[in-house]
């Protein structure tokens, strides 16, 4: 049978094929990716769209956790200092209610309580990163301002709004407790009780001092309870941090299995492709020059 004498196209196609395999292998080793363009693996590329978005989301959730955590911790420590201030005020009130106490001593205690009041007000007006922590969602202005017309001596400028921040695909945490709920709700009024204790001490009214002290004591319990909300958020955030770390690892490993390469396999492929390529080239260099004419002697 006659064979195709023209081996060049076949040879060329063999060389091109081995070169293209070599190029692919080289690209996989050098980039560490098996999918560079969607056609390399269409379904993996489609899955990567979701993976890209989820990975970025999880990164952002992680950032949200740390930013929310610092806000919550700031608020919690402010409340903790309010609690200790109130504890101090209660013992001062008990001291002031003691009938044997001198009027001048009561005045001195009143001054101390006044100091406590202003410290509590400053905690209630705490601003963290430019926003007032206890103003509800009206966080751009100080929530408590002095107001002589108000019975407590202060007006609440905030609202009852609560912000929740997403820290997971289906998880949000409450990041604030409005001041109206902590300091000035209908049953307990921190600032009002402190103000009335000051007034009672200044006037030396023992019964009023006792009432005010009892109110402060109730407020103290209430504020302590509100701290639990922050405590819950904190523990939720800590748990979520662990989950998000795990999620990041999962997503990264999913991405690797979708578009990454196994380096050992890739390196082996590269070696094989190199061998195949040099074999094709060597074969070509041997085949092309051979013709009968090389063996016929030139007529002299």
């Amino acid at each position, binding site marked *: 049978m006659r064979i195709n004498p023209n081996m060049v196209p076949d040879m060329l196609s063999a060389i091109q094929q081995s070169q293209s395999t070599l190029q692919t292998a080289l690209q996989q080793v050098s980039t560490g990716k098996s999918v560079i363009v969607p*056609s390399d693996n269409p379904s993996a*590329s*489609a899955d*990567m769209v979701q993976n890209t978005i989820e990975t970025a989301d999880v990164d952002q959730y992680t950032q949200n956790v740390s*930013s*929310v955590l610092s806000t919550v911790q700031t608020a919690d420590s402010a409340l903790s200092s309010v609690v200790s201030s109130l504890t101090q005020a209660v013992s001062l009130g008990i001291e002031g209610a003691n009938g044997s106490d001198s009027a001048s001593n009561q005045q001195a205690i009143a001054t101390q309580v006044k100091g406590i009041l202003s410290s509590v007000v400053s905690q209630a007006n705490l601003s963290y990163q430019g926003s007032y922590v206890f*103003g509800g*969602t009206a966080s751009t202005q100080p929530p408590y301002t002095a107001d002589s017309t108000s019975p407590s001596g202060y007006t609440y400028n905030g609202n009852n709004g609560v912000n929740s921040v997403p820290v997971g695909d289906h998880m949000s945490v409450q990041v604030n407790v409005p001041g109206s709920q902590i300091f000035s709700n209908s049953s307990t009024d921190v600032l009002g009780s402190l103000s009335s204790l000051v007034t009672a001490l200044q006037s030396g009214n023992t019964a009023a001092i006792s009432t005010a002290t009892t109110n402060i004591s109730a407020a103290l319990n209430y504020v302590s309870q509100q701290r639990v909300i922050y405590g819950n958020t904190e523990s939720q955030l800590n748990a979520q941090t662990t989950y998000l770390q795990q999620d990041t690892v999962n997503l990264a490993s999913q991405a690797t299995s979708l578009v990454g390469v196994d380096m050992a396999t890739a390196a082996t492929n590269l070696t094989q492709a190199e061998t195949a390529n040099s074999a094709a080239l060597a074969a070509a260099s041997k085949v092309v020059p051979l013709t009968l004419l090389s063996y016929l002697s030139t007529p002299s």
Partner: protein
Amino acid sequence: MSSINASLSIGMQALEATQGALSATSNNIANADTPGYTREVAQFSENQESVSSSGVNGGGVTLSGLQSVRDELLNLQIQQQTSLQSSVDTQSSTLQQLQSYFSSTGGGDIATALSSFSTNLSQLSATPADSGARQGVLSSAQDLANAFNNTSSGLTSAQSDADGQVTQTVAQINTLTSQIAQLNGQLSQMTATGEDGGTVQDQRDELVQQLSTLTGVAITQSSSGETITTGNGSPLVMGNQSFTLQTATGTNGMQQVLNSTGANITSSLQGGQLGGAIQIRDQVIPGFLSQLNTLASQLTASVNAAQAKGFDSNGNAGQDLFSISTNPSNAAATMSVALTNPALVAASSDGSAGSNGNLANLSATLTNSLPSGQTPAAAFASLVFQVGNSASNATAQSTAIGLNLQQLTDQQGSISAVNTNEEATNLMRYQTAYEAAARIISTIQQLSTVTLNMGTSGGY
């Protein structure tokens, strides 16, 4: 007994025939690498023997002609496969270019922009009053709009490239068909006079081969010569007459191909660069574009609806974040961000500047299903899959056809190509034959001398 002169003339004929064969062999060797060349074989035939009273005498040899060795059926198969391959290759090269718009390796694609929009919304919800975070949302919204614009313009520019290719290819087809018709004329004249029009046929086959890379053709042989039509039967060449194709701008702004009678045959053209370009221009890209436009307009509507549910930093109801053309075929190209003031991002659900309540609604636009039934990410992912799959199919098809074509070409080569070893052998054969024929003549000459000198003193 035959005469010495008869032998001389036989020797003479042998010399001429061998010379012809040698010239065919040299021509084969000379054209060993000429594309489309078909080897020619010298056809010898013995002459009529003469019967005389003294017996039967051989009549010598004649070179009856040169026969080119070709397989028409194989040529036809090669032309068909070539058409298919060049169609697939045309589509593949466009799809390969398009892929960059759907690959997240370089960034700037819609997936990356969607993820950045999502994270910026999430970041803003941690610090709703922060103008930097608000600016971040606007910038990422801008990036998202740009990504839609770029992807759309990538698709439309590939489409208009394909459109340009249609016009160019039609012009090339017309040039080729007129050349083929001319060669057909020559060929039928040669056939009429009994010549083997090998060279002309080679040229014509080569041109038909070129024509089949441009468009799919159907070839029929008839007594009047070769007839070439497009796949759907519009004539291109009939014998020595060629029919030109024309292009005209259609209602969709794209070039339409008209046959010689002015009928629009665009949608029926298949195969070749022309078929490939039309397929990609009228089917593939419009499919992608319409999905992209649907995604752009539905996402815009969904985000704007979420904006309207909330309030901006100033306590006013949220305004549209994205603006888009009302023409659905232009949606992705015209998507833009309508807001420039970061304060107008409607993060608040209660009208106060520090509220982040509405950001959950905005974020939900990215995770909830659009009216298309898919989330924005899933809709884009499905587009990525389709583009990638089309490109990978086109490449795989091209490889498969390439292998088939290689086999056919090998087969054709085994029949028609010049084997220099074979020709070298022929060269030796004809050389020996020539030498032998020459020896006949010199022998006859010596014999004649002897005969003429008979009876003279010189003797032999």
